[in-house]
């Protein structure tokens, strides 16, 4: 099996993945703690605007609305940043991809790890929010990192496909930009999934991002473990995405040298 062979190769080159991650990390955060904290400014500003719009203007009835909203924003930001960085990853690293021989998937995988740092940092704000709103720690919090890992698998697989496509079709990233924006409104970030009418429930039930956000939020705010169906969907979608991603990338990369 090609995919399994590739996974073995990738695992054997984990040191390179770490170095590529360090490179992206340094470039993104200017190598400083302040740089890492700085990236939280973006979701915080989003939170300020969305809170104003949805609680002051639309009078959302959801309790602890800012915290509810921030969980959604944090998870969404991870998905959106990971997908967009991954899409541009091969083009952005053309100087490496076209001129050095190494497993090129690692370039894409390393940028998926970058927004994980952002998401981890968001938890400082989430914890402050939890204290402020009196959310008590629950065992279900243990589900949160697992949900993120499964979502990250989906991003990695999707990212590998999009990164390959972006080499041959340079305007793919614009479609990706619009796509993640559409997903923002199709996922329960500003609203709760129960607010979606019965006839449209399938939209949030087949969308892995929606499932991840709902599961994450219930685990964090309500102390509820994700349902078995949510686990299954996230796991199946994650593994399937990686499999497809590796297969597509492996076929596409033979032409990278010609197209870059």
């Amino acid at each position, binding site marked *: 099996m090609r995919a399994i062979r590739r996974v073995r190769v990738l695992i054997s*080159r984990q*040191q390179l993945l770490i*170095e590529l991650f360090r490179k992206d990390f340094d470039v993104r955060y200017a190598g400083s703690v302040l740089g890492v904290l700085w990236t939280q400014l973006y979701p915080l500003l989003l939170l300020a605007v969305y809170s104003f719009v949805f609680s002051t203007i639309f009078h959302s009835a959801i309790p602890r609305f800012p915290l509810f909203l921030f969980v959604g924003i944090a998870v969404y930001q991870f998905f959106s940043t990971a997908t967009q960085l991954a899409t541009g990853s091969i083009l952005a690293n053309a100087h*490496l991809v076209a001129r*050095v021989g*190494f497993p090129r998937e690692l370039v894409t995988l390393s940028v998926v790890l970058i927004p994980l740092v952002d998401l981890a940092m968001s938890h400082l704000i989430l914890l402050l929010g939890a204290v402020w709103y009196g959310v008590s720690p629950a065992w279900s919090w243990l589900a949160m990192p697992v949900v993120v890992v499964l979502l990250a698998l989906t991003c990695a697989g999707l990212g590998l496909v999009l990164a390959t496509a972006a080499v041959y*079709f340079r*305007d793919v990233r614009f479609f990706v930009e619009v796509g993640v924006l559409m997903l923002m409104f199709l996922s329960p970030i500003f609203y709760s999934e129960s607010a979606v009418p019965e006839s449209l429930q399938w939209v949030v039930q087949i969308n892995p991002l929606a499932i991840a956000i709902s599961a994450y939020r219930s685990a964090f705010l309500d102390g509820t473990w994700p349902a078995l169906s949510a686990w299954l969907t996230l796991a199946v979608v994650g593994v399937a995405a990686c499999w497809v991603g590796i297969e597509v990338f492996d076929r596409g990369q033979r032409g990278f040298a*010609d197209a870059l």
Partner: protein
Amino acid sequence: MLSSLQPASSVAQPLDGPAQPPVAIEVDGVSKRYRRYAYRNLSLKGRALDLLRGRGDQFVEFDALRNVSFRVRHGEMVAVLGRNGAGKSTLLRLLAGIVEPDAGSVQVHGRVSPLLELGAGFAPELSGLRNVYLYGALLGLRREDIAAQIDSIVDFSEIGEFIATPVKHYSSGMYLRLAFAVAAHLNPDVLLLDEVLAVGDVAFQAKCMARITDFRAQGKTIVLVTHVLQHALDLCDRALLIHHGGLVDDGPPGTVLDAYNAILTSA
């Protein structure tokens, strides 16, 4: 001898005698075809419009390499000669694993350290020091092994305090010195050199030559693309002559140089 190699000739290798060192590089019936695009639309929008207009990619295909076979034994130093565009660099890119052959197989036993293009594998925005680690990892080295060599790499490169500066601010000479220092210190089994030495100043070139001589003495395998024919004569055990993508001669540097000169004068 100037003849195009037939597939059968690649099989007719001498049997490995007990005194022969093991094979370091095996290139078997390798072909590589490139496309030179006159028109290629790299966007979805453009593709969709082209589809409606019935316009497709326009390109000419050319064989950068055609059915090339040879073996290099461990400890040999081989020069690759040929005119510009003959396929020499493609051959090294195949050996370095940067591109895959369309047909045939390339096997390199041991760790390869390629020095093909100036600054290839460097991330412009990272410091020289960080690039050493990144490049080492790209070549498959462990961090500890790079750390053990880092002082001698920095010394050799003569970059000095600028090692902490992002390499985008480096001059081409500094790029070369750092790249050569890294490639030469990472204990490769096979060293691939593509004319990059032409960039450095005379003193550094001499230093690189000394290092290459050391490598030879240590029994490393070296493949060198060069237009400095004297290098091929003085340094190498053997030379390969590539012409129009085919391997047309393979033997002692002296005789291969004669064949090369014959090609140059006939052109």
